[in-house]
């Protein structure tokens, strides 16, 4: 698998580490236990198809990326910087 880092270009997957599902970006506001926290921590749609997930380019520029990837074929459709997705 190769991941195209917006800063560094096309790089081998070995330079990146997976940081979980894209839902990791929507952390609930409340501090106490609620359904939102259950949803955030535990529950997944777990679709077979195109998903958004977080990768960290630790072996390169250090950026956090949102990667648009098929978990059926492992094909990658695009990458964006988390900083841009958030702003």
């Amino acid at each position: 698998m190769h991941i195209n880092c917006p800063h560094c270009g096309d790089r081998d997957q070995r330079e990146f580490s997976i940081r979980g599902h894209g839902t990791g970006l929507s952390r609930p506001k409340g501090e106490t236990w609620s359904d939102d926290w259950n949803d955030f921590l535990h529950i997944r749609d777990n679709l077979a198809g195109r998903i958004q997930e977080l990768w960290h380019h630790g072996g390169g520029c250090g950026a956090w990326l949102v990667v648009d990837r098929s978990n059926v074929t492992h094909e990658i459709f695009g990458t964006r910087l988390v900083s841009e997705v958030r702003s």
Partner: protein
Amino acid sequence: MRYSGLQVLWQGLTGNKGWAPVWREPEPKPEYDIIIIGGGGHGLATAYYLAREHGLTNVAVLEKGYLGGGNVGRNTTIVRANYVLPGNSEFYSHSMKLWEGLEADLNYNIMHSQRGIVNLFHSDGQRDAYARRGNAMINQGDDAILLDREGCRKMLPYLDYEQTRFPIYGGLYHPRGGTARHDAVTWGFARGADQRGVDLIQNCEVTGIDIENGVVRGVQTSRGAIRAKKVGIVVAGRSSQVAAMAGMRLPVESHVLQAFVTEGLKPVIDTVVTYGMGHFYISQSDKGGLVFGGDLDGYSSYAARGNLSMAEHVIEAGMTLMPMIGKARMLRSWGGIVDMSADGSPIIDKTHIDGLYFNGGWCYGGFKATPASGHCFAHLMATDRPHNAATRHRLDRFTTGRRLLDEEAAGSQHNLH
């Protein structure tokens, strides 16, 4: 036909003409008392125990491919009872006891081999953790022996004890642990269920679950609609897709786990060895292949294959631990879709829909659970009460956040268990 040594001899002498197919190929009936979705190890074991323990034989197992084509035919076959947490401890202990009687019970040679498992440790802290684990196993009535480095060296002389990365301090030895032939386990349960009247229906994919006013009525399949009073979902890596047919979202992510096997060699590794620090474990199959594996690739996947980087990582760890295996040639590698739950422990529970039951979240460790999973799920489906050995594997533990069964204290991260 009852299988025995004498039968083998007799068949051999009479041209092997008497062997009949091991199970029937029935057409689906319009209605069953119970439908099990998924003909893997757990689905077949559930059907077997429904018939054997509860006399329920108007049962069908619906399998979208062929029996045993999922994880039960892809795993590295390790069977152990070395869990710590109340809930898991009694459950895996229950499973071990069932394994020990399974060949006689099924009248089938599943090649269950209690060759022992050694979990290596590499620091004082890890030794303490394994001593605690060993005590928990003994408290549960199972067996564990803490070996020091010399004790390990006697059993496993071929390891590199002085390796600079993780020098070996000793190991936790679990003599009753070992392996079993995965396909034979599938076939044994399938045969036992079929003999008692269960319909095993292959090439029958469930595409929908019929629910009326909160009560399950049956399923839609690639071979038509089938009605049922009760339906059990037992589909491992496909749990989320099938549960979604009933409008449910699960605390599960599907990931890929890879495994590897070398060409057949003369006997060389006679126990199971695990090297947690390096992410590597190994055993030798009865055919002679060295069967080994490591960690998940780490990203969500339904591809049933992984990437080269994890293959390299596993093989490097193997070479560090036992340099001798560098001379063996690797024959094959493959992957399976594993149903990773949020706390690393399984779910055996009713759902909020009447008559619909769920069994899944087995992560990469459900092969050892096969008999107990089937036994406890059958009990739940037949009586509507959890079996004593599986009272804590509830779905609502995630909703409340209480009594999570996080065996490895990895936190709520599906890919870290």
